[in-house]
Structure formats: structure tokens, C-alpha cells
């Protein structure tokens, strides 16, 4: 059996098993751990990547760029420049003598070739060490080429993924407010924190259209530089994936007085609640009525199908391990709709309040964990005897080896999971995996079925705290 490292004990809790719930989180991972987290650069890249008419140049050795080529399912309705991977591919000489010249040449040739609306230059670890003045290079190229060239300070070792989100927000913020001429409706919003994975932004935009609400910009799903430039014209910011974008919403509130609300478009209740939140904000009878109609119509449309799945799936147990904690909240609720209890839930980047909220909405006995690793996760899953894991690419093989069904909830997904339509896709995915006949051959699954319920997980969790 595995040992929980001392340094990790305060990042694992079981609801009801300890007197106090105080999650230690937002700290760097323990050295030697196999964390599921990435780095600062990853955070920045995740947020800015969907901007499809911008050039994304990754300054550093080739790895960071090679691993992120076309990595996510962020769709674009027009240009697809974001799907290419550009790197300055620094070699030994540049590491010794500096990479500014190469950066300048690379930026110039790429802007001239691909004619982007703006360029983002991501600094990776090495840049922080060799001390390239990327600010100066960006400024020079911007002046010569007549487009915004924005440095993103995302050196991998300078913090966590969250600091990368922040750096990305700062980059976006530089563009906001540049276009003051645009005329927008008074009932207008920006969508923040949706990345148009599998076309999810389009689903949500369609809802707002039906409600009579204008979407000025989406940051950054199906994103365009010009839209971002006029984002300050909107009357409200609607923030999803709050971990990444709340910081930008706060800056916009301070500078432009735009209020913001945090929402989630995942699951029936949360989607409805998100749309109502926006409708209520405008105090407009038509919008409110449109919204009511929309929600009624959509819920009626999907309800019978959800019900069908609920009957099949009820009584199962799930584990959730995702990047952002807001996603985790919605998943706990959505699973409950299907009669599935959440036995384990965790995130890579949740903060203290997030975990407190999670503790509130979870059933007693639920294991709540921050920044876990394969060894812990597999152990919890075995002990809680879960039927389903919801996670990303790196978690998938863990589930499969253990004979546990899996639902992809990551940035590479090909099925839209947002909105009412997304709920149906979610049900289908969970159903398809959980009820597949292949598990009958899984040794792990068979073993668990045989000794069902003989092991007690709480023992283990208490051991972790003793």
C-alpha cells in the first residue's frame, strides 16, 4: 500500500472524518511527486490559446511548443492560426549568448508570413534565466509591424498554473479598451472563461441570442483580437472557469466599472442559474421572459432523456479530478442528477474557499483532495470502489487499468459538455462507459465486485492525519 507523504497530509480530507476542515492548497507540488499539474506557461497558454487570429510564439527551447501543438479542442469559426505551433527553438548558442536576436527575427518573419491581428510571446523557463529583454523586442517589432506584440511572462518555474492565468489576464487587459468606437447594446455581456471546447461557446452564445442579450466578446473561446479590444463596452462580465478569469473581471471592474458574476454552464441547474443571473441583471421584462421560455423549452427537451439515463445509472459512485474547482462543483451536482454519488473529488488549482464550498455540497465520507497524484488517486479509487472517474488525459489510463469507467472532462474533449445540450452528451458519455460490457473481463473490476465493501477507506484517511 502507498504512503501519503507528510507534506501532503493537509491536502487530503474526508468529509466528516476530521473535526476541522482546513485545506492546505495553492502551494507548489512536493519535489519528487508525480503531480498532474503543469506549469505557469501552461496556464497562460490555456487561456490565450483559443484566440484564433493571433500569433502565439513560444520563446524557448522546442519542447514547450512541441507539446502544446494543437493540444486543445478550441474551435474557431474563422482563422485557425492558433492551431499552429511556433517556437524560437533556442539552441545552445542562444542559451549562452541570448535569444533576443532570434526572437526578433522569428517574430518578424512570422508576422510577415501569417499576418496576424496581434502576437503573443510566451516566455518559458529558460528565458527567465538567460534574461532576454522580451519586452523590448516586442516593443520594437510592434512599432515596425504596426500590430500589438504582447509579452506573456509565463516562465514555468515562477509559480503555479494560476500565475499563468494571471499573466494571460494581464496580456488580455492590454488589449481591452483600445476600440472605443464600437456601439453595443445596453444589454450586453462578455463571456469570460469559456474556451469553445468542442464548440461550447457557440452553444452558450446561441442561448444569449435567444434571450436578447448581445455578446460583445468571448474570452477567449473562438476569440478575435478586435472583439477583445471593445470588450470594455459590455455592461456585464459573466465569468466561467473562475479560477482563470476572475482576475481579469476584477481589473475590468476597477477600470471600466463593469460588474461581474461567476457562473457555470455545466449541468442543468447551473446552466439555468447562469442564464437567469444574466437575465436578472438587466431588469428587463422581455429578457426575463425569453430566458424563462428558453430554460423551460430546453429542460423539457432534454429531461426525458436524462431521466432515462438516471434510471440506468443511479446508485453508482464517482471520482472527480479536474483542473479547476468550479468545474468540480458543477460535476458533483450534475452527477447527483443522475443518481451518482461523488466519493472522491479534487482539483489541481482550487483555493481555500473553493474547497470549503466543495465540502459543503459533498456527502459525508467524500474524500476531498488538492493536487493529487496517480498513487493517491488510485488508492482512493480502489478503497471507495468507484464506478466512474471524471478527469483528463493523464487520469484516463489510471481508471482503465483499475477497471473503472471514464468520462473525459478536459481541454481536449471532442464532445461539448456545456449547456443543456452538453448535459445530454455528458449523460451519454458516462452511460456509454459505465454500462459497457468490456468491464466483465477486467481483473480489477472482478476482484472488487467479489470483495465489495470489505475495505474501509476512512481508516486510511484517518491514518493520513494521525
Amino acid at each position: 500500500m502507498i504512503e501519503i507523504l507528510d507534506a501532503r497530509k493537509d491536502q487530503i480530507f474526508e468529509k466528516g472524518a476530521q473535526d476541522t476542515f482546513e485545506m492546505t492548497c495553492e502551494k507548489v507540488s512536493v519535489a519528487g511527486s508525480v503531480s498532474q499539474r503543469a506549469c505557469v506557461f501552461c496556464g497562460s497558454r490555456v487561456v490565450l490559446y483559443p484566440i484564433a487570429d493571433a500569433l502565439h510564439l513560444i520563446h524557448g527551447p522546442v519542447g514547450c511548443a512541441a507539446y502544446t501543438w494543437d493540444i486543445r479542442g478550441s474551435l474557431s469559426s474563422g482563422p485557425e492560426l492558433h492551431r499552429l505551433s511556433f517556437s524560437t527553438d533556442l539552441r545552445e548558442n542562444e542559451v549562452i549568448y541570448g535569444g533576443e536576436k532570434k526572437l526578433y527575427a522569428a517574430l518578424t518573419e512570422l508576422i510577415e508570413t501569417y499576418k496576424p491581428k496581434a502576437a503573443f510571446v510566451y516566455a518559458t523557463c529558460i528565458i527567465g534565466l538567460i534574461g532576454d529583454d522580451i519586452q523590448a523586442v516586442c516593443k520594437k517589432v510592434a512599432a515596425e509591424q504596426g500590430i500589438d506584440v504582447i509579452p506573456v511572462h509565463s516562465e514555468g518555474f515562477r509559480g503555479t498554473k494560476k500565475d499563468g492565468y494571471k499573466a494571460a489576464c494581464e496580456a488580455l487587459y492590454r488589449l481591452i479598451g483600445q476600440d472605443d468606437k464600437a456601439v453595443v447594446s445596453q444589454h450586453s455581456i462578455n463571456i469570460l472563461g469559456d474556451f469553445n471546447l468542442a464548440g461550447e461557446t457557440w452553444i452558450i452564445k446561441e442561448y444569449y441570442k435567444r434571450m436578447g442579450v448581445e455578446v460583445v466578446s468571448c474570452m477567449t473561446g473562438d476569440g478575435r483580437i478586435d472583439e477583445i479590444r471593445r470588450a470594455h463596452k459590455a455592461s456585464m462580465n459573466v465569468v466561467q472557469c473562475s479560477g482563470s478569469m476572475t482576475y481579469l473581471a476584477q481589473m475590468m471592474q476597477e477600470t471600466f466599472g463593469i460588474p461581474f458574476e461567476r457562473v457555470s454552464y455545466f449541468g442543468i441547474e447551473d446552466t439555468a442559474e447562469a442564464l437567469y443571473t444574466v437575465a436578472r441583471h438587466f431588469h428587463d421584462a422581455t429578457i426575463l421572459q425569453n430566458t424563462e421560455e428558453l430554460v423551460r423549452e430546453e429542460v423539457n427537451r432534454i429531461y426525458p432523456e436524462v431521466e432515462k439515463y438516471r434510471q440506468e445509472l443511479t446508485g453508482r459512485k464517482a471520482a472527480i479530478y479536474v483542473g479547476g474547482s468550479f468545474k468540480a462543483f458543477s460535476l458533483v451536482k450534475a452527477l447527483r442528477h443522475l443518481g451518482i454519488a461523488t466519493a472522491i473529488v479534487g482539483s489541481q488549482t482550487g483555493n481555500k474557499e473553493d474547497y470549503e464550498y466543495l465540502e459543503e455540497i459533498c456527502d459525508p465520507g467524500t474524500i476531498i483532495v488538492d493536487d493529487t497524484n496517480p498513487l493517491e488517486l488510485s488508492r482512493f479509487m480502489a478503497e471507495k470502489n468507484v464506478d466512474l472517474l471524471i478527469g483528463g488525459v493523464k487520469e484516463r489510463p489510471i481508471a482503465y487499468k483499475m477497471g473503472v469507467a471514464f468520462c473525459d472532462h478536459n481541454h481536449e474533449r471532442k464532445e461539448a459538455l456545456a449547456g443543456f445540450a452538453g448535459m445530454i452528451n455528458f449523460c451519454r458519455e458516462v452511460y456509454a462507459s459505465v454500462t459497457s460490457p468490456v468491464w466483465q473481463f477486467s481483473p480489477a473490476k472482478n476482484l472488487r465486485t467479489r470483495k465489495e465493501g470489505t475495505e474501509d477507506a476512512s481508516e486510511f484517511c484517518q491514518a493520513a492525519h494521525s
Partner: protein
Amino acid sequence: MQANFVKLPTVKKTGPAFVSTRNACKLCAPLGASLVFRGIEGCVPLIHGSQGCATYIRRYVISHFKEPIDIASSNFSEATAIFGGAANLKIALDNLIRQYKPSAVGIASTCLSETIGDDVQGYLEEYRKVHVGVDIPALIYASTPSYRGTHMDGYHEAVKATVVALACGGPRSNSLNIVPGFLSAADLRHLQEIIADFQLPCTMLPDYSETLDGESWSDYQKLSPGGTPVSAIRAMGRAAATIELGRSLAGEETAASCLTEAFGVKRVTLGIPIGIRETDLFFSAVQEIAGCELPQKYAKQRGRLVDAYIDGHKTISGKRAVIYGEADFVASMASFLDEIGIVPSLCATGAPTKKFQEIVSSLLSAGHKDIIIREDADFEDMLDICSKIGVDIIIGNSKGYYLAKNLNLPLVRAGFPVHDRIGGQRILHVGYEGTQQLFDRIVNALIEYKQINSPVGYSYI
């Protein structure tokens, strides 16, 4: 079939026109090293640098193998970057040993730790000193800064480092060492089968045929079972010979050359056995070491392959292909295509290796004038060139989907990575059998393409 009579313009090899790399056709060095370390029994790879590198590498490798692959990181922070990684490395080792109880830890450096000048070898000495008398796992260190080499350099560096750290001398055995290079799990299994059929004991390093392509488990395994046992690696210094696959290794300092120097183990450097010509060389080398005839089984495989070549030749004759990937893989593929009558019109590798041109040219039959051989190439370069010269088929890893989509051409997936299909680790490339499978897939891809694009459709070829 239409033969390709049009004489295409010869594009001069001018080196990449772009300063930047656009859609890279190479990966970074610690990735190669991590694969090697996962091919050693009970070994955990530890990437000494910041967290992103390890996580990205894991994600990339998992998407190909579809297996759990734990790669730890020493998790550099800002302070580590300033004061050095000694403390982090020590904590990382402590934690890994406690949690995984490994038989070895394979440490790969990163651009980051190399740039700050971390003396990892020194830190490890220290660690060993502190633990004298305590049973600690074997510690292997490979220096793998990516600004100096690609994943293949990392791969070979890690094999070399492992051998240098562990191999011992002693009375000569009749065992054969195989350093297979970066092949699929199915390839490794096939090579082992071949050697076993020659009744030769064999140590293959690395061997991730089980660890990265394993069975379904009944209990979660901290480290997937399989891999070359540390004890077998120790015995590599006593082997009769080492066969290393990859023509670019000739003349380089490699695991095989180190074994020769230190223990007098005979070194045999061969190309990756893809195609009849390269596979013949492989079999005759093994025959010579084993001192016995080619087993019937392989004589028959070869015979069937020749028969298939003849059955399929008209479909492919004169077709033009683009092949890309690791230099040695491309070289062997070029030799294979050349022997079946497909023109390897563009042979590209992302690695800046000067030898590439020479090696590939030496494997082609005389008379080919319009073949472009590019090192330090990326997928945008390839797309530009292919658009100009015209090709019929794309053969290589799944990143070539980008070419296939843009050029509307068939793609035969081979090599690493295969991210958009299941079973990349089970693609067999080597030996007569692997060549047979590749041949069938290539011929069928061309037939299928023609069939799909045929306005009338047909049900016989």
C-alpha cells in the same frame, strides 16, 4: 497504374528558410530519456527541472501508449532556479524512494537545470555518501538539455548513462545485448522473439514492451511490471556482443561503444531492420553471433514478403512519398520504399544532424535525382515542399495528419507518436513480419484512396 514520368525540379537543400520552428518534427531530450528509464524494471524517471516539462512529457507519452506512466519532477521553484537544485533533488529522491520503492531512479536534466549549471552527478555522489550502508536504488543520471539535442539524443544518452552506471565485467557469456533504439512495444517483442528463436540469451535495453503496453491489472501497480532487470543490465559487460540499431550511431560514443571500451564487448551497428535489405543485414548479424542457420520460420516470412512485394508492386510503382520522423527511422523507411519502387521524394527529420543526408543517400539505389533530404525540418517546411513537388502518400507519425489534411492525401501511421488512433504501441515495423504489415498497409492505403475518390467505385482491384 500511371508511372510518374514527369521530371520534377530538383529543389536544392538550402537549410530551413525560417528562423523559427513551425510545427516541430522533434521533441525534447528528457522525453527520450524517460522512455528508456520506463524500460528498466522498477525504475522511476525523475525529471530534474520545473513541473511543466514532466507533466507535458507524461501527457504526450500517455496519449500514445494509453498506459499509466509516472514521471516525477523535482519541481523547481523560483528559489531553486536561483540557488540550485541540490535540495530539491534530494527531497525528490527521498520521496520517490519512500513512495515507489523503486529498484532504480533515472534522472534526466532539463534545459533549466543545465542552464543554472546544476552538478547532478555531484549531488548524487553526495546522496550515495549519506546513504552508505543503506539499501538505496541504483541512481542513473542522463544529461539531457533540449537546446543541445532532440528526444533521440536524450534516448541514446539515457541508454549510455545506464550502461555506464551499471554494467560490470566478468567471465564472458554467450548472451547478446540489443539496444533497439526508439521502436514500438510490438517491435521490441518481435526482436526478442527472433533472438529467442536463435536460442540466444539476450538483454534488451530498454525494454518497455510490457511496461508501456501491459495487461489489464487486478490491482493498481505503482510501477507497471516488466522492463530490463537491473541485474541483467549489470551483466551486459559480459555479453558476447551488442547489436545497436540506428545507422546514425556508427562512430558515436554510445552504450555499445562504452561496453566495447570497458569490457571488450563486440559492437555491431546496424540500421533499423525495416525492408528486406536492412532486415537481411540484421538476420545475418544475428546468425553470425549465434553461429547457426536462419530458422525456417524466418525464411518463410521472408519468402512470403517477397511474394507480397510482387503481388502489390503495380499499385505502388513510381508513387511518391514523404517520410519524416527520427533520423534512423526515416533512413530505414527510405531504404524500404526504395526497394519496393516507391520514391521517397521527401525524407525529413526535425533533428539538426549533419549525417542524415549521407546516411539516407547511401541507402537509396543509384539514379534517384529528385529526392529531397532535409534535416532540421518542421511540418511547415514539409508542407511547403510537398505542395511544390507533389507527393502521393504520407508515411510517419500522426503529426503528419497536418500534411494529410492540407494536401488531401492518405496517411499511413507509423513511428511515434500516434495520438489520433488506438494501438500506436502495437504497430509492428521491424523484421520481415513488420515489413509485411507496413507493406500491406501502404498498398491498401493507396488502393483505398483511389477507391474512395473513384466516381464509379469498384469491388475488385
